[in-house]
């Protein structure tokens, strides 16, 4: 007899019901299947109406994040084997509105991302045709933060974002640091202005779960704490030397 495993999948089909339901699917168990393979099996063989996002199936595109047994993971990088004998509960990423089944609406993040100005800011842009050189050590300063794939696992893990949706959140703050720590960038003060208020860095209470769930070791929690140290020392500086370093 073939081994089977049960998936308990969150369903939200607004045209059918205003409330979500859970649907059980029994599927063949393969040791080398990831959760995404199981969902694809359901979609192809059992129920074509099941809706979810995926693309690269190799941990690069960041679109297949879901809650598996209550924990945010990339479903293309998470094996069924880790959850045997099952059943396995699959839900859309927490803290986001659900559009349909396992698909969440991340437009809130996209709005917030714009606020942190995630691009290189320079005063001399366009003034001169030149290269901006960078040493390997200068690259290493921000490289970790540039690995983010916008998978939103960190937002799903962050209770502060869940409770205070105004909070800019882990990935956007890590991306702000990605540019702040880039030796070619000159936009640090502009970003600090946008982020040093309540809903920026200070709402983070350092739960640390964002870093624990991040599949790319971006360590957003660390990025935010470094931001706080800097924000606090800037505050002292402007208090003690109000006329220095304005731009």
């Amino acid at each position: 007899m073939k081994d089977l495993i049960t998936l308990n999948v969150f369903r939200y089909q607004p045209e059918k019901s205003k409330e979500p339901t859970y649907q059980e699917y029994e599927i063949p168990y393969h040791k080398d299947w990831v959760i995404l393979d199981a969902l694809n099996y359901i979609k192809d063989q059992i129920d074509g109406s099941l809706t979810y996002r995926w693309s690269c199936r190799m941990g690069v595109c960041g679109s297949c994040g879901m809650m598996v047994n209550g924990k945010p993971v990339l479903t293309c990088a998470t094996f069924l084997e880790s959850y045997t004998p099952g059943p396995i509960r699959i839900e859309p990423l927490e803290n986001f509105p659900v559009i349909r089944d396992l698909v969440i609406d991340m437009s809130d993040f996209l709005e917030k991302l714009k606020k942190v100005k995630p691009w290189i800011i320079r005063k001399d842009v366009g003034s001169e045709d030149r290269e901006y050189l960078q040493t390997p050590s200068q690259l290493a300063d921000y490289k970790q933060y540039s690995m983010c794939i916008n998978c939103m696992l960190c937002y799903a893990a962050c209770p502060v974002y869940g409770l205070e949706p105004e909070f800019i959140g882990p990935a956007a703050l890590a991306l702000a640091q990605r540019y702040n720590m880039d030796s070619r960038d000159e936009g640090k003060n502009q970003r600090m202005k946008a982020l040093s208020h309540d809903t920026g860095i200070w709402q983070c209470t350092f739960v640390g779960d964002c870093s624990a769930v991040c599949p790319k070791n971006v360590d957003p929690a660390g990025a935010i704490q470094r931001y706080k140290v800097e924000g606090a020392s800037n505050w002292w500086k402007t208090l003690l030397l109000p006329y220095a370093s304005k731009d």
Partner: protein
Amino acid sequence: MEGLQTYKRKIGIFWWTKRLSHFRFISRELTSIAVAFIAIELLLLSKAIMNGEESYQAFVQSLTHPILIILNLIALGGILYHSITWFNLAPKAMVIKLGENKVPGFLIALGNYLGWIVISAIIVWSLL
């Protein structure tokens, strides 16, 4: 995406019991009650000292009450938990570069612990 009908899930008040990491976080936050307790105790102690020898003795005497001993022990545990978890987190906030290289995280945590020990030693020494 305006006009899109979405389903918003609610967060229950017991959200922090669902994941170990969240539970640990809330316990760390709760240890601030222990900090507040000790701070109040210290304030009362200073007040007793200002009121003279007699009130100081009475205050010290009242601290020997078993309930207060237990409360103080719980507070000590809470504060130790708070400090240790805090120092272990310090390397995340402080990234120090010496020349081309990053100072490893454990050295930064160690520096915090050493600072803690030195300051505690100075306090103990000044009391003796």
